[in-house]
Structures are given as structure tokens and as C-alpha cells.
């Protein structure tokens, strides 16, 4: 290859170069700011993780698999996966191969390094000597074709999202549209520009052949310059609007992955890790179809993708509306391909709300409760009875108090298995703190946690049994109960069955199991309830289950959704459950049970009730 121009410069590179410098500076400043916004402890953890070989390897692997190949999207939908990875990976390879090409065929680059890898074909002429170039040329054309196929799919998706299995997709903002159109035009323009010069600079199957076609109509090489200008302008526009569009997710995600691998959590609602998450949102809109509120059209703008957009715009009114409405079912978090935690982001937003006054539980004296739970304490010195049997303290929680069937069935099952137990909140207890936590009032929630901890620790029990997943989640995450095992009744029942302490009679009943949000996505309990149900009858699955289970609509997570507005969500969740025509719907959460019972056309039960009927 030889250079065609002595200067190695043409004005058309300017739009690209300016855009590139702008976006690099913007990202650099943003990066420094986000890192500075992290709490000192998290910052330290982040830097350490960067030099720890294990996390380093994981970071590289994750960035490659997630940002370039988009494995998560592949898993969900092959076509969508191909679309994303063809653009991302194809473009990445164009850049890599482009740089290799430049390094192979030129020397003494200097400032030209800024734009040569992008516009190389304009500045060089092919010489007879570059047989080895045919591989590079081929690769460049091949990856260009890959990207172009992705762009074509993206255009089709915009028009017909249903072909990609998406019922609804996001409504792009004005700048998003500009970014999108400039991105779409970059690669066709590149093809055009390179094809114009392919007879001079060389090319492969794509550019070279197009060049033959073009010369039929346009034999004048003077026409090539506008094409190169257009290509550079498309790049320049894309880079200039990038920080203000959804495409900001491309650079941000590279930061988000090491953050997450370093174990950083959201602390501030708008800064640090939260900000990285918000900017990592690619506006793909997968959360729109996932959101249980989406059954009502009016709620579509309250999904996580719109929360992220409003946070970027600092639209406080809408941020508050969106974060208060959410059911906190966590499904958007579970399916998000980049790992935006929609539920945690919202709780963080709730936490910054200002209240004139708030609860304070320092006046609550728990000595009476401690007195009531003294079954396992034999005397004043708190010596625990020495029975070999496990000592189970059963905490029903507030919601179970309103569904006495669950409490009674659980007690009966425990008796059948010969377990010694004590009910902690027979006569009313103290809330676990999770509802308060979900409202974003952490300090108050922790006060409740302390009160309950005091009661539990002095009860002498060695197992804390819960039937409410809402309680279970906060007990697992925020309670520190040394020496006491915290367990949900589904897990405990499975253990009783597997160890043979509970015999179950299998009946010819078709059960479908509904995964409660807080138990499944919240605590990762999916298999145990299914094992129990399979022992008691025939288990069928809902259309969407496990990680993708649909919230019953009764969640305490939503602060603003009124009773009537939840009806459509419950009915939608019920339709999902009865896909395989089960006779009975079984769940493991008192709130789900009450909610479903209101609208269901067949019996809805807690797993404890099923077991009480079939165990002996």
C-alpha cells in the first residue's frame, strides 16, 4: 500500500475527529465523577478488585460476553441476540482489524492515528505487492456485512417489533432518534464511501463488487469525496449526541461490569453505582413487556426504562411517581440484559424523600413478647431446655395474621412431623421491617429489625420458621441471628419430606405453583416448593414461571397503586397461571393467596394447606 496524499489529511475527517475527542473527554470526566461519588469504602473495593486477578479475568470475560456478544439476549431470543451482537461485535472487529491494517501498512502515523484507522481506504492506494492484504480486506468487508445485517434487523425491529418477540418497545426521545438514524447511516455510508475508492485502495467481495456496479453510473472519482464527508458526518453526529442518548450505555456498561463484580451496592439514589446503572440502560424495552403493571396501558411509562430516562433528565415529579408506583416485584431486574436493578433504584429514590416526621420505636418494650415466647427457656437464667428435638420458633408475620388458614395448616403439619414449636406472634407481633424498608425508610426499618432480634434471640429457639416471603427476605438480608437458622416453610417442609419425618399421600390433583416475587426472585427459592408439590400431586407449570413469574398485583411494594387498579394485574397473573389447566393454584405467600383468591375461578391455597391435607 502506498499513501495517495502527501499530507495524509483531508477536511472531511474533522466531524469525526471532533466528535471522537468530545465523547472521549465526556466519558473520561463522567468516569472520574462516578468513581469520586462512590463511598470511600466502595471506591477502595473497586480499585482492589481491578488488580485482583480473579475479578480481572471475570471483568474481561463479562465485558466480552455481555457487551460484545450479548449472551443474555441470545438466551432470551436468538434473533434479538444476533441483532445486538452483530452490531456490537461486528463494529468492534472493524475497529480492531482497521487498526491492524493501519499498523501493517503505514509507518510514522503521528496525529493521523486519530482518523487513519477509520478512513484508511481514502488515503491509500493498493499496490501489486499486497497479496497478504486480501485476508485483511476480506475480514473488513465481512465484518461490515455483519454489521449491516444487524442494522437491517434493527430497522425491521423498529417497524415490526413483534417479529422479535417484543410486544412493546420504547418510545424513543428526539435525541435518541437522531442518534439512531446517525448510527444506522454510518455503515451504509461507509460501504458507499469505501466502494467508491475500492478500485484505488482495493477491497474485497463487498466493496470491490459494488465498485464495479458504481462505475457503470459514476465513473467520476470526484464524487467520492461527498460520500466520505457523509460517512464522517454520520460518525461525528453520532458521537456528539451519544452522551445524551441511550447509546451512552455502550461506554457506561464497560464501567458497570467491574463495579458489579467488585460487589458494590446502590447507596446514593443518583450518584455512583446508581448513576452507572441509569446510564447503562440501553432502552431496549425488555422491561416493558416484563412489567406486571404493563397490562394497563397507562402504566407503560412507569417501567424501569422510563425511570432511567427521567432520572437522566432530572424530572423529579415523574421520578417520584414512577418509583412510588412500582410493585417491586423485581422482574425487570431479573431480565435486564445489562443488570439495571429497577427495584433497588426505586427504593433508593424513595429513601431520599423528605418527611416532616417519622416513626420511632424506641418506646416499644418487648419484655411482654419475650415472656410469651418462653417455651424453650426453662428458668430465669435463660437456660435453654436440653431436649434434642429442634426448637422451632414460628413467625407468621402480619399478612399471615389475616390468613389464619396458613397459620393453622403450618401448625398442624409441624405437629404431624412431631416438631416442637412456638408461635412468636400469636397475639400480634412486631412487623419484620420489610414494608418499611420498601418505603425507603431504612433507619426505621432497622429499628424494627432490632426489636424482633431481641425477642428471637431470647427465645432459646434454634430455628426461625417463616411463612411469609416478605418477612423472609429481610430476615435473610438484614437480621443477624447467630445460632439460629432462618428458613421459609417451603424449604422446611421439603426437608421434612426428604428426611422422611413427614409422609405425603400423592393425590391425583393438578397443582400449579406460583412463585411469589419475594421468595423466588427475592430469595432464590424455586425448587423446594416444587419438590413438595410433586410429592402431593401432579405439578404443572405456568406459562411464565420461576424467574419470570408474574407478580400477583397485591405487592406491598407499590405505595400509590390503589386497590381497584391492581385488579387487571391480578387477572393477568391468574391467566398466566392457568395456562396448563391446573385444578388448584398453590402459592407460598399469604399476600399472593389473598390477592388471587379475590379473582380466581378455582381454589387458591398456600403450600402449607396442601401439605396439611396430604401429609400424615
Amino acid at each position, binding site marked *: 500500500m502506498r499513501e495517495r496524499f502527501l499530507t495524509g489529511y483531508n477536511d472531511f475527517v474533522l466531524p469525526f475527529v471532533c466528535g471522537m475527542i468530545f465523547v472521549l473527554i465526556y466519558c473520561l470526566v463522567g468516569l472520574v465523577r462516578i468513581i469520586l461519588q462512590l463511598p470511600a469504602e466502595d471506591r477502595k473495593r473497586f480499585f482492589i478488585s481491578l488488580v485482583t486477578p480473579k475479578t480481572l479475568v471475570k471483568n474481561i470475560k463479562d465485558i466480552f460476553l455481555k457487551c460484545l456478544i450479548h449472551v443474555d439476549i441470545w438466551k432470551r431470543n436468538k434473533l434479538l441476540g444476533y441483532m445486538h451482537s452483530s452490531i456490537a461485535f461486528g463494529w468492534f472487529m472493524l475497529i480492531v482489524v482497521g487498526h491492524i491494517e493501519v499498523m501493517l501498512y503505514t509507518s510514522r502515523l503521528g496525529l493521523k492515528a486519530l482518523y487513519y484507522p477509520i478512513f484508511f481506504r481514502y488515503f491509500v492506494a493498493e499496490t501489486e505487492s499486497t497479496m497478504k492484504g486480501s485476508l485483511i480486506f476480506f475480514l473488513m468487508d465481512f465484518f461490515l456485512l455483519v454489521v449491516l445485517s444487524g442494522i437491517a434487523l434493527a430497522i425491521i425491529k423498529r417497524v415490526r417489533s413483534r417479529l422479535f418477540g417484543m410486544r412493546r418497545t420504547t418510545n424513543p426521545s428526539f435525541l435518541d432518534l437522531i442518534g439512531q438514524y446517525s448510527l444506522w447511516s454510518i455503515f451504509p455510508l461507509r460501504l458507499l464511501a469505501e466502494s467508491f475508492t475500492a478500485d484505488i485502495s482495493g477491497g474485497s467481495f463487498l466493496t470491490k463488487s459494488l465498485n464495479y456496479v458504481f462505475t457503470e453510473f459514476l465513473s467520476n472519482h470526484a464524487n467520492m469525496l461527498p460520500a466520505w464527508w457523509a460517512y464522517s458526518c454520520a460518525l461525528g453526529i453520532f458521537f456528539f449526541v451519544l452522551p445524551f442518548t441511550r447509546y451512552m450505555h455502550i461506554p457506561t456498561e464497560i464501567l458497570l461490569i467491574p463495579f458489579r463484580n467488585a460487589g458494590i451496592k446502590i447507596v446514593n439514589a443518583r450518584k455512583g453505582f446508581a448513576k452507572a446503572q441509569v446510564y447503562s440502560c440501553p432502552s431496549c424495552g425488555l422491561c416493558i413487556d416484563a412489567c406486571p403493571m404493563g397490562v394497563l396501558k397507562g402504566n407503560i411509562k412507569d417501567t424501569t426504562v422510563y425511570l432511567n430516562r427521567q432520572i437522566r433528565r432530572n424530572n423529579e415529579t415523574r421520578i417520584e411517581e414512577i418509583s412510588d408506583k412500582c410493585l417491586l416485584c423485581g422482574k425487570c431486574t431479573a431480565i435486564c440484559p445489562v443488570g439495571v436493578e429497577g427495584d433497588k433504584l426505586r427504593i433508593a429514590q424513595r429513601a431520599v424523600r423528605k418527611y416532616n416526621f417519622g416513626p420511632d420505636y424506641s418506646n416499644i418494650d418487648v419484655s411482654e413478647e419475650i415472656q410469651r415466647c418462653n417455651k424453650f427457656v426453662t428458668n430465669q437464667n435463660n437456660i435453654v431446655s436440653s431436649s434434642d428435638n429442634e426448637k422451632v420458633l414460628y413467625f407468621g408475620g402480619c399478612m399471615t*395474621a*389475616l*390468613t*389464619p*388458614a396458613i397459620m*393453622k395448616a403450618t401448625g398442624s403439619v409441624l405437629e404431624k412431623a412431631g416438631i416442637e414449636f412456638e408461635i412468636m406472634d*400469636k*397475639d400480634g407481633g412486631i412487623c419484620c421491617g420489610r414494608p418499611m424498608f420498601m418505603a425507603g425508610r431504612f433507619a426505621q426499618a432497622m429499628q424494627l429489625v432490632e426489636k424482633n432480634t431481641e425477642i428471637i434471640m431470647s427465645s432459646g429457639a434454634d430455628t426461625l420458621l417463616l411463612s411469609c416471603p416478605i418477612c423472609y427476605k429481610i430476615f435473610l438480608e438484614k437480621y443477624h441471628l447467630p445460632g439460629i437458622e432462618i428458613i421459609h416453610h417451603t424449604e422446611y417442609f421439603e426437608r421434612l419430606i426428604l428426611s422422611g419425618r413427614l409422609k405425603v399421600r400423592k393425590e391425583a390433583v393438578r397443582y400449579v405453583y406460583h412463585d411469589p416475587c419475594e421468595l423466588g426472585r427475592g430469595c432464590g427459592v424455586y425448587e423446594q416448593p416444587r419438590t413438595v408439590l410433586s410429592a402431593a400431586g401432579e405439578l404443572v407449570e405456568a406459562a411464565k414461571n420461576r424467574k419470570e413469574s408474574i407478580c400477583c398485583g397485591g405487592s406491598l411494594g407499590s405505595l400509590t397503586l390503589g*386497590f*381497584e387498579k391492581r385488579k387487571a394485574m391480578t387477572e393477568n397473573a391468574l391467566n398466566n397461571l392457568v395456562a396448563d389447566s391446573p385444578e388448584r393454584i398453590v402459592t407460598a405467600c399469604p399476600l399472593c*393467596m*389473598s390477592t388471587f*383468591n*379475590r379473582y380466581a375461578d378455582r381454589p387458591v391455597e398456600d403450600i402449607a394447606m396442601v401439605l396439611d391435607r396430604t401429609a400424615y
Partner: protein
Amino acid sequence: MKENIVIVGGGIAGLEAAAQLLDLGYKPIIIEKSDHLGGHVADWNCLFPDMSPAKDVVSSLIARSAEANIFLNTEISFVNKLKDSYNIMLSNGISIITRILLMTTGFSLFDASKKEEYGYGIYDQVMTNKDLEHWFNTGDDKRINNSAMNAVGFVHCVGSRDEKARNPQCSKVCCITAIKQAIELKQKFPDAMVYCFYMDLRMFGKKYEDFYINAQRDYGIRFIRGRVSEVGENIDGRVIVKAEDTLSGKPVKVTLDLLVLMAGMVCNPDSTKVANMASLPIDSDGFLKSRDNVADIIESPKDGVFYAGACTGPKTVPETLAEARAAALKIYLYIKGLE
């Protein structure tokens, strides 16, 4: 007189209307899905305010309407609208062409087990108003222990005035029924303490207020203004009821040997089914929609379709009977108009 008149539902409204139409010289057809006539009233023991036996009311109605064509254990399979009449296909295979349809489909009793917090079907000491009437009639119910009946509670508005139970309407008759049943129980167990947990006492009918005064003065029934929110069970199987005594503003808790839930009236799903088949509109409360809720309560918006009784909303027995008579007269005049 060849005119076919189809009465859907053999409760007291259907029977009364049939009796009147027979007197007017017609031979109506009664379609009843259950195996007996008299509907809910047939399950009852005594009726307020004069404690007249329900049996007498029902048997006299049955006697007066005996000449009608009565199909028991029969449901409507489908209804076809013809030009100016309806073709009604019955589950027993008979099809009837009629120009006049009288809906006396009545109500359904709210399923008390839907109010999970009251523990109906879970606790041994919780029953409904209907179960109690059954006991009055037969003396047979395991939940009532004749030797230990020290305290009894009545919960008003179970499944009425309750958006969570999907029935925001007042069922109208539960207040007076609760007082009636409370008095009857007190007569049987004079030493028992009887509590009524109410939200508002709606004593609108003839002599209802007297009944209320009697319950207070002569029977010492305790009225607590507060809705029961939770029912628990203690070790010996008695139920613990929690409510707020809203008049004193203090929570109350009481242990009872029997808790009676005053299940309210909700629209009958079969009534909705027939209404859908005949394209009759449903009102916002879930009951059938009349042409006008003041002037034309017994007329549907469709020509030739009439209503009587609780299919248009909760009604007392005398109200239902009055509507049935009015509907019979209206049908008579309607047929005259057709001729």
C-alpha cells in the same frame, strides 16, 4: 289464553308472580335449577319482624302456584332472540317460544370463606347466617355445642359494603336478620352473652326499630360498633375476635363459643349468565339493570322481559312479594297491549 310466560327462578318472587298470573287466567312456566321451590326463604326458619315461620310462607306460595308448569332441576341452556319473541332451550331438552320472560333469579349468598381473616371453614366455631337457620330448622350442627354456649358473636356486613369482597353494596337485610337471630339464640341460651359487631345499624323497615329495642332492652344483646378484622383460635378451640369499639376508641377482644357471619347478598352468577344470553344489561352493582331504578324497577330495557325480587338488588321478603305482584300485573297489561 295461549300466551307462554316463562318465569326464571322458583323462589318466592317466581311463585308469587305465578300465583297472580294463574289468578289472571294464564298458565306460566316456572324454571327452577334446584330440586325444590321457595329459594333462600325455604332454607330459613322464621321471618322478621313477626317471627312468622318461613315454612308457612313458602308452602302457601307453592299451593297457590301449583297449577303452573313447573320444571325442577332444570337450567336454561341458551336463549335465542327471535323477531318478537325468545326461544328458550332448557337443559332437559324442552324448548319454549315465549314473548314474555320474567326474571326472578334472586341473589346468591356471599361465600364467607372468601373473607379469609374470619376463618370460615377453618375454625370449628365459625358459621354463617344460613348455617344458623339450618340449625334452627334441624337442630343439627356440630359447631353448636348445647352444653357450652357462653358467648356468641354476630359479624355484620360480611361481604357487604366491602370493596375487597367486590361487593360495595349494603345487603339491606343482614342487620335485622342478625338481631332476629341474636334474639332467637338468646331465647335458646338465656345465659349466653350475645354480641353484635356492626358498622352501621340500618333499621329501615316496619317494626325493625322495635325489634332493635327489644334486643337491647329485653334480651340484653350487646352492640359493639366496630368491624371485626381478625379471628383467631385459642388452645381449647374457642375463637378470639378482635375489633375496635369505635365508640370508645379502644380495641376490644373477646373469646366466643360461636361466631356467626352475616353473609350478604351478591348477584346470582346464574342470573348474570341468563342475562348475558338474553342480552340484558347488568347494573354497576352487578345485579340486573332495570329500565329505571325509581319508576320502572320491574321492567328491563327490553320489551317483554320483566324482573321481580332480588335479581335487581337486595330485597326483603315483603318487597319481593310486592314486586312479584306488580310484575304479574305489568305482564297482564303487556299482553293486553299486544292483542
